[in-house]
C-alpha cells in the first residue's frame, strides 16, 4: 500500500493502518531496533511501541516521508531502551558504531554542553549533503541505521577496509566541520 494511503488510515483512526505499516515496514524497523538492542524480544517490543507512537503522533503530525518517520521513532525508542538496559550492551552494533565515531570526535570536539539542538541538526544535514552519494550512504547506514561494516561493504560492493577507511575519514571531516562552527571552543 502507498504510504499516503497508510497515513490516511491513521487519520481515519482505522486499525488497519497498523497492519499495513507492519506489512510494509516491520523488517526495516526490526532491523534498526535489533542493530541497537541485539535482542529479538527487545527489538520486537520497540517495534510494537513504534506503531503505538505513530498511532498517537499522526493526528497531529503528517509525515512527508513516512518510512523516515518510522525509522526515526524506532531508532529513538531503541536507543532509549539501550540506555536502560545493560545486559545486551556488549554485542550491540550501535554501541560499536557509537564508540567508533566518538573515538574520533571526543578528543577534539566538546559536545558535552547542551547546544542549540536545531543548530546541530542543521550542521549534520549540511555535512551529509556535502558528502558524495556513496559516502553519505555509508555514513547514514552506519550511524543512523547502525548497519554492520560487513553489511555496508556487501551492499555497496566495497571491501570492508575501504568502508572503515571512508568512515574514519568522514568522522574526521565531521570533526573539522563541528570545530569550524565553534563546537569544541570553550569560549563559545
Amino acid at each position, binding site marked *: 500500500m502507498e504510504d499516503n494511503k497508510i497515513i490516511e488510515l491513521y487519520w481515519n483512526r482505522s486499525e488497519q493502518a497498523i497492519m499495513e505499516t507492519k506489512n510494509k515496514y516491520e523488517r*526495516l524497523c526490526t532491523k534498526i531496533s535489533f542493530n541497537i538492542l541485539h535482542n529479538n524480544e527487545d527489538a520486537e517490543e520497540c517495534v510494537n511501541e513504534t506503531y503505538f507512537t505513530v498511532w498517537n503522533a499522526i493526528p497531529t503530525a503528517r*509525515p*512527508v*516521508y513516512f*518510512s*523516515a*518517520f518510522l*525509522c*526515526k521513532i524506532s*531508532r*529513538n525508542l531503541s*536507543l532509549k531502551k539501550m*540506555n536502560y538496559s545493560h545486559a545486551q550492551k556488549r554485542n550491540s552494533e550501535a554501541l560499536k558504531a*557509537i564508540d567508533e*565515531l*566518538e573515538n574520533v*570526535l*571526543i578528543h577534539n*570536539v566538546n*559536545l*558535552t554542553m*547542551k*547546544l542549540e*539542538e536545531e543548530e*546541530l*541538526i542543521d*550542521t*549534520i*544535514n549540511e555535512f*551529509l*549533503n556535502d558528502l*558524495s*552519494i*556513496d*559516502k*553519505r*550512504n555509508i555514513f*547514514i*547506514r552506519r*550511524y*543512523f*541505521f547502525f548497519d554492520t561494516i560487513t553489511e555496508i561493504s*556487501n*551492499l*555497496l*560492493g*566495497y571491501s570492508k577496509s575501504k568502508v572503515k577507511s571512508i568512515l574514519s575519514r568522514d568522522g574526521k571531516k565531521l570533526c573539522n566541520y563541528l570545530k569550524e562552527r565553534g563546537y569544541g571552543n570553550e569560549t563559545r
Partner: protein
Amino acid sequence: MKLDNLWEAIGKMDDKLIVDVIELKNKEKNNTNQWWIGVAVAIVIVFSTFSITYTVSAEFREWVISLFQIKETEVVPKTESDNNKITESIAPISLYAVDSIEDVFEVQYLKSTNYMSTIGSLFTHSDDSGSIKYYAAENSEFIPVEAEEIKDKVKLTGITGEIDFTRIKYRGNLLLRENRDTSFMLDDGNEAIFGLEVSNNNEVWLTLYKNPQSDKWEYWAIYDLDTGEVSDILQGISVNGIELKNYPVLRQWGNVGNGIYIVTLGQTVERAEAYLIDINGKRAVSFSELTGIPHVSSAKVVNDKIMLLESIPNDKFNYYCYDYSMNTVTEIYNSAEYWISEEEGDNSLRVRFSGGRYDFVEEKGIIYLVDEFTGTRLTVEGITEDLAESLLINSDNNKILVSSFGDKTIEQIGIIDIDADRFYLMKRENNDSVTEFSISWNDANHIMIEAENNVSNESYIYLYSLAE
C-alpha cells in the same frame, strides 16, 4: 553515550536523506525455485536449491553532479627550445613543463625524440632502428628499466604457434608487451594468433584467438614465463556434453576470483549464453539457470558483482546487477537499446556502456550517468551528447573522462569525479604544430594525451591529474 546530543541530532537528520538511503537498499522478493550456486565471499560452487532475491533498481531517484567550469583555457607550452627542459637525463624523454590550472588540474608535459608511449607506469621509446627501450620516471629523472625478450613455440588445443613478447618487471609489477605480429593460418583457412597477458590475479594467460578480427573465439591457459610450460586448466570442462574448446563461439572471459570465471559460449553469436565456470570443480552453469533470467547473452565482472545482459527482440536488452555474495539480482535497465553515435533512437532508453560501473544513458533527450550497481541516476550539469559519447572510465570506477576533438587537437577535457559529485571541464589549446591523436587513462588518476610532430618525429605525452 558521551555525545548524546550528537546522536540525537543524527537521529533527527533530514527525512529525505534517510529515504534516499532506504530506497537504495534492495527490496526483497523471493523465488525459491532456482537452481543456485552457493556463493559466499569465497565462492564455492554447490548445486542446491537456494533462494534468490530480485529487486527493482532505484533509477527514479535522481542526483546531481555539479559542473565546475574552469575559466582558464589550458595552452600547451611550446616545445621549440630545449631551454625549457626541466629534467636532466640521458634518456631521450624529458619533462619540459609543468602547470597547475586553477588549482584543479596538475599537468606534466613530456617530449621525446621519436615515438614515445607508455606501458603500465613506464614510458617506452623507439629509436630510429625501431628498438624499444623502457624508462621509469623517478625523482624527476627517466631511468632505464631492464627488459627481457620471450620467444617461444607454444601449443594449445592441438594448435602450434609462436609468441614474441617483452617481459618487464618494475617494482613488483609484471608487464608484457607484444613485439611483433605472430599470426598464422590454420589448416581450415582461418587466421589465428597467440597472445600473452597478465591476469588480474597476476597469472600469465596464454590465449589462442581464432579469427581475432571476428572476436568470436578465444581459449586460454596458464603460461609459465620461466619454463614455458602451458597448463590447459579449462580442459575437461563441458557444457551440454561439449567441451568448451569445441564451441564455435567462446568469448568474453572474465575472472571472478577463487577459480571462478565467466564466459559466453554457444553454437552461434546470436544463441550464445553467459556461463559461470568453476575451474577447480570442472563445472559450468549458465547464468540463466542461476538467476531465472531467460537469455543472459553476456556478462562482465565489475568489482565483486557480475553484470548480466539479457537480449530481447528488436535489438533491445535488459540489464541486471547480480550480487553473488548477497544472492540478489537488481534490474538496472529495462527494454533499453545501445546508444550508437549518429543513430536516432525510438525514444527508448539508450545506453552508452563504459565497461565499468557507470554508464551514460539518454532518455527523452535527457542524459544521465547511471550507477550499474544500484540503477541510481545522476544528472551531470554541463554534459552534452558529444561529451557523453566519449566516456572513458578509470580502473577504480570512480572517475569518468570525457573529451571533444577538434581538427588536430583535443579542445575540451572533463573529469567527472563521482566521489566529489563534481564535473571539472576545461577548454584547451595547442598552438604547437603537433597532432594530438589519443586520450586515455594512464592509470586510475592520470589522463594521458598523446601527440606527435609529423615533421620532426618528436612525440609528446601530456599527463593530467586532479589536484589533491
